[in-house]
Structures are given as structure tokens and as C-alpha cells.
């Protein structure tokens, strides 16, 4: 099924060869193939169908000592991240290679969390290499599933001293991964409303503006079930993190109404910037950093607001899949990205919220050292921007995603996919 050359025999593979496989959707055809070919008849095929299902895929993740004991540097690692999450020169990775000698193969392969999960899940279920030693996913359903399935490596915090020294408090004890057993943040961001003042001639302050018939056919919403659900919930005055089934149904009803009134133009995965810039969209759900970047680089004048009903704060987390071929190199990079100067360089480009609050100081220092240049101005702007460094008050208005177990996720997702996939 998979013809990739395998660097060495993994214990998972050996186990798979010596024991009847229980995990993985791909093991189903495996069993049915054998029996089908042996019997070679329709009746036998029917029997084979009854014989197999897909076994539970849950595994127990190894303890820190068991996993990390005896693991060594390999000198290279593969890093799967979202597009535009590092400058095109990959400055921070070059600095990492200079400091450690470890080469990084950087891939901008993560376009949509759920879809990415769908790609790696069968491989992880089979105990196969995913092609990534380190990857970045948001604190959503997929992360919950990865943890629940035991697919993530428990982090050895003795190797994360920068993280211990510099990470902000908000990020070090979260509902999605208490105690950061499996993940540490790469960056955080806000999902709020962006609008183009060339077309919208009033100030947008509220989620209710997304339901205003005056903007018929010019409003963009996100296609991700959790993102859009959060806005439906906030529109109804419900805090997403405490929402119940009834709240979801009410939110779905509100979103359906918005769609059927022709207000929504389309549901976007993450490609809302271009239509917002060229006027196809006047207003859309958007991620803070994308708008900041677009304005800084293209000179556009798009506005971003945290609506009065509140907005959501999400965190893209770094994690190591249990089939990683270079976990030591990966955790070294994780730690490296928490050095304030490195984190500052990263934040200067991506313009999202850094988990290292000290970066604000670094920006001010850099700006002072630059003197009177454009860059100094940009750095000062960023240090003052609440999109990059939210204030305490703003953190109060930012809500977390609801945390759900796999069986509740299904109900949640189908409610909201019925809205976006009409």
C-alpha cells in the first residue's frame, strides 16, 4: 500500500507483522483481501464483509522516560506548518541550523486542520511515518482527537528550558492541554471581523453586523465548523467554551437564517483576504494576523475588530507525532523558537500573538537601535498593537473554543457542516 523506502524497521511495524492488526482503516481491506482471494466467490466475500470492521485505534502514549530514553539527534527534521507562518528566507530555521547544525526540511503543508488530520490519521493508525517530525495544529477538535488517540509524544520538559523561562502565563496552563504535556504554542491569534472601508461606510463593532441585510451577498464566513459555530454562539450571546447542545442548535438556526437570507457570499477555509481586498467581500470573519500582514505588506487599509460580543482566541500548537523519525531535533527546535530574539523575529513577520510576552520589550529595543527608519516605525506600531499584544481587558473578551470528546464532535460538526455545505 505504501511504497516509501523505510529507514529502519519500527517497533510498530514489527508488532504489525507478528500480530493480527487491529488498528487502522487500511487493515480492513488487508483482512478482507486475503479472505476474498482465498475463497474467490461472492458468498465468501459476503462472509468476509461480516468478519471485519475497523478496530479501535486508540493507543497508550509512552511515558516521558520510556519515550525519550535513548533517543538521539539525527541532524535533520521535517517541519509541517501553515503557509505564511515564517518568512520566505526561513530566517529562524537558518538561525537554528547555524546554532545547532540541524537541517530543517520546512513544508507549508497544513492548509486546514481537519483535512490535515484526515491525511495523517490513517498513517498514525498504521504506525507509519507521517512525513513530519514536528507539526503545527490549532487547539481544536483535531488536537483533542490526536491526544485522545495517543498519537502525540509526551514532551520532555527538561529539554524545554526556554519555554519554562519565557512563555506567557496564559499559554502555560490551558484547557486543551493542561500542563502542556503534548504541545507548546507556536503562535496565537484572534478570530474577529475584518472589513474593507472602501466599501463599508460605517464603523463595524458587532457580530450582528454580519447579519445586516445591507451587506447582502458581500459577507464572508469561515467554513470550519468550530470557527463558524463560535460566531453563531457569540451572536446569540453564548460563551462558546460553556455551550451545550441546545446552544449549538440555536446557533445553527441563526447561521442558517443568515445564509438563506443571501447575506453570505461563500464560506472560506482561509482564502478570504483576496476577495476582501478586491471588493468581492466587504466584510468577513478573519484572523487577526492575516489582516495585519496584508496591511503591512500591501499597503491596504483593511480594518480588524474584536466585536463587542467578544471573539475567539485560538492557539496553533507545536507537537511531535509518535512516529516521528527525529523527536530530539524537533524538541530542540521547539525550545529554540522560545528564545526571545528568535520569537521576536518570527512575530515581526507573522504578526500574530506570540506566546513570549517579552517580545514586546525586544521590539522596543530593536526600534530604539534602528533609530529613525521605516522598520523602527513598524516595530513600534507592532509593539503597541493590541492585535499582537492584547491587553488584559481584551483577553477578557476573548473566548476559548469548546472542548469536546470524539463522539460529541460528530454531532457538533454535522450540525454546522449542514450550514456551510449546502
Amino acid at each position: 500500500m505504501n511504497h516509501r523506502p523505510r529507514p529502519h524497521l519500527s517497533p510498530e511495524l514489527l508488532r504489525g507483522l507478528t500480530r493480527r492488526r487491529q488498528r487502522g482503516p487500511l487493515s480492513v481491506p488487508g483482512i478482507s483481501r486475503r479472505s476474498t482471494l482465498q475463497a474467490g466467490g461472492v458468498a465468501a466475500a459476503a462472509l468476509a464483509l461480516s468478519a471485519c470492521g475497523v478496530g479501535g485505534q486508540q493507543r497508550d502514549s509512552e511515558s516521558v522516560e520510556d519515550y525519550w530514553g535513548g533517543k538521539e539527534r539525527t541532524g535533520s527534521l521535517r517541519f509541517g506548518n501553515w503557509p505564511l507562518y515564517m518568512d520566505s528566507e526561513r530566517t529562524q530555521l537558518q538561525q537554528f541550523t547555524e546554532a545547532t547544525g540541524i537541517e530543517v526540511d520546512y513544508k507549508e503543508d497544513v492548509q486546514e486542520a481537519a483535512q490535515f488530520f484526515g491525511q495523517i490519521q490513517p498513517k498514525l493508525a498504521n504506525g507509519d511515518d507521517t512525513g513530519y517530525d514536528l507539526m503545527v495544529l490549532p487547539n481544536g477538535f483535531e488536537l483533542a482527537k490526536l491526544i485522545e488517540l495517543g498519537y502525540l509524544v509526551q514532551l520532555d520538559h527538561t529539554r524545554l528550558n526556554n519555554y519554562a523561562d519565557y512563555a506567557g502565563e496564559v499559554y502555560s496552563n490551558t484547557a486543551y492541554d493542561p500542563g502542556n504535556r503534548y504541545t507548546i504554542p507556536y503562535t496565537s491569534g484572534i478570530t474577529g471581523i475584518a472589513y474593507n472601508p472602501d466599501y463599508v461606510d460605517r464603523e463595524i463593532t458587532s457580530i450582528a453586523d454580519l447579519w445586516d441585510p445591507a451587506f447582502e451577498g458581500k459577507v464572508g464566513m469561515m467554513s470550519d465548523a468550530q470557527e463558524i459555530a463560535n460566531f453563531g454562539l457569540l451572536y446569540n450571546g453564548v460563551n462558546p467554551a460553556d455551550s451545550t447542545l441546545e446552544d449549538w442548535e440555536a446557533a445553527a438556526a441563526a447561521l442558517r437564517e443568515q445564509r438563506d437570507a443571501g447575506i453570505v457570499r461563500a464560506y472560506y477555509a482561509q482564502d478570504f483576504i483576496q476577495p476582501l481586498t478586491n471588493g468581492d467581500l466587504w466584510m468577513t470573519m478573519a484572523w487577526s494576523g492575516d489582516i495585519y500582514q496584508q496591511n503591512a505588506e500591501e499597503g491596504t487599509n483593511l480594518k480588524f475588530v474584536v466585536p463587542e460580543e467578544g471573539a475567539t482566541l485560538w492557539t496553533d500548537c507545536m507537537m511531535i507525532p509518535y512516529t516521528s523519525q527525529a523527536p530530539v531535533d524537533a524538541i530542540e527546535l521547539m525550545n529554540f523558537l522560545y528564545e526571545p530574539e528568535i520569537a521576536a523575529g518570527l512575530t515581526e513577520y507573522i504578526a500574530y500573538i506570540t506566546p513570549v510576552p517579552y517580545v514586546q520589550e525586544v521590539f522596543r529595543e530593536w526600534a530604539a537601535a534602528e533609530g529613525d527608519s521605516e522598520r523602527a516605525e513598524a516595530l513600534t506600531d507592532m509593539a503597541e498593537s493590541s492585535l499582537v499584544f492584547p491587553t488584559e481587558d481584551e483577553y477578557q473578551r476573548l473566548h476559548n473554543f469548546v472542548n469536546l470528546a470524539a463522539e460529541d464532535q460528530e454531532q457538533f460538526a454535522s450540525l454546522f457542516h449542514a450550514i456551510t455545505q449546502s
Partner: protein
Amino acid sequence: MSNRKSTPYVLVLPAWVWLAMFFVVPIGGMLSLSLTTGNVVTGFQQTFEVGNYVEAVGTYWEQIVRSLFYGGCATLLCIVIGYPMAYWIAFRGGAHKSTYLLLILLPFFVSFVLRTISWRFLLADNGVVLGTLKSIGLIPSDAAVLNSSPAVILGLAYNFLPFMVLPIYAVLERMDPRLVEAAHDLYAGRVQAFLRVILPVSLPGVFAGVLMTFIPTSSDYVNSSVLGGTHNTMIGNVIQTQYLVNNNYPIASAITFVLMGLLLAGIFSYARALGTERVMEVHA
């Protein structure tokens, strides 16, 4: 001599193995999966849950019907645009036939998704086409094409046009020109010659073109997700979401089988209506 007898079987063996490995087995696995219940964490148990099919059709009949409709429209559009192209290249292409064919295939050197995304620029509200028409006052200033059914159908037709042009061209190019001369000798006008000689001869090409455009267009999901808006979701998008996003393998497999069944039924009745020998000719 027994060696020679077995030669054809040996030659056909790779094809059989290929089909068994990559068609029969996955289809069997998927059929099995479509009858299971469970979720990705607890696993999927074989329960012969026929309800999956009821749920698949009950929930997504709208998207299924829409996909067949979009596929049909795109295919018709391909015939209307593609037939004259093939005709012109075959009969008027002269020495440059292969250049013209290359030009038709040229867009294929660009990724399918990128080609589709470029239509977003083309169809933008203030873009090259609509912006120009608006500025000379031919269409109202709030007119929009992007994120609608026509946008999706146009995208589909554009992306699959070569699959219509090439088979029609192949048939017309092989046609004996003396057939047309004979028609003229028998006092047929240009229209008569086309309708009674050229068109019937080219039908197998059209038939092949229809198969090669209708099947992929009605199961496509890229055009709908890039160019569509609300109420433009095709069944391919639903399968993709159910499989990759929700990890609901049973429902995804069930929808796949429903779609496959519908397409097969459609093709067979189409083949019947046109005569099966044409289906065979297509492969010649």
C-alpha cells in the same frame, strides 16, 4: 508449445493483478466500510448497517442531484464549445494540427487547482470581465458571477474541455474525406453533408467525450469549493468532508457507492440508447 499457449495469459496477468489490487480490493473494503457503525476513536464495527445508505441519500440527495445537473450542464457546454474546435482543427488545421492540439493541452501544464483559482480573478466582481462590462454600462454595477452555479459550471467546462475535444478530433481526423465528396456528388449541401455524413460518423467521439467529461465533472469538488458560494456544494465536497474532516468513513463510503451506482446506471442507459457497438468503437 504449451509455452506459447500460456503467453496471452502471462501478458494479461499484470493488468489483472493491477485491477485486483487497486480496484477490486479497495472497492470491497469500501463496501464493507459503508456497512459499519462507530467512530474513529472507538473503531468501526461491521453491523451491516444499511441505514448508512438511507442516511446518505436522505441527507445529501440535494447535493447528488445538483452534481449530476452541474455535470450535465458542463458536458453540454463542452460539446457546444468543443465540437466546433475539434471540427476546425481536423478539417481546417492544415499543417499546424499538432500545434493547435498542443495549445488545447497547454493549460494542463498548470496545476488543476491553480487553473481554477485563476478563474476567481477572471470572474471577480470588479475583475477583468465584469469590471470592464460594468464600466461600459452593459451590466448593472452590482452584478456578480463568482460564487454561484454558473461560475461552478463554467469552471467545470473549462477544466474538462480537452477531454471532449480530443476524442471528437480523433474520430473526425480519421474520417475518409471521400465520404464528404461523395455526399456532395449526391447533391448534398454543406448542411446536409454535415448532418447526414459527418455528424453520424463523429458520434462515437462525442460519446467518448461525454463519458470522459460527465463522470469527472459530476464527481469533482475543486470547482465547487473554489468558485462556488452558498447552495453550490457538490457531492464530491460532501464525500471529502465526511472522509477527511469528519472521519465518518461509513457515510463517506455509502455516498460514494450511491454516486457510483447512479453514474453506472446513467452510462448504461445512455449506451443502450445510442447502441452498444458505439461503446465498443470508443475503445478502438
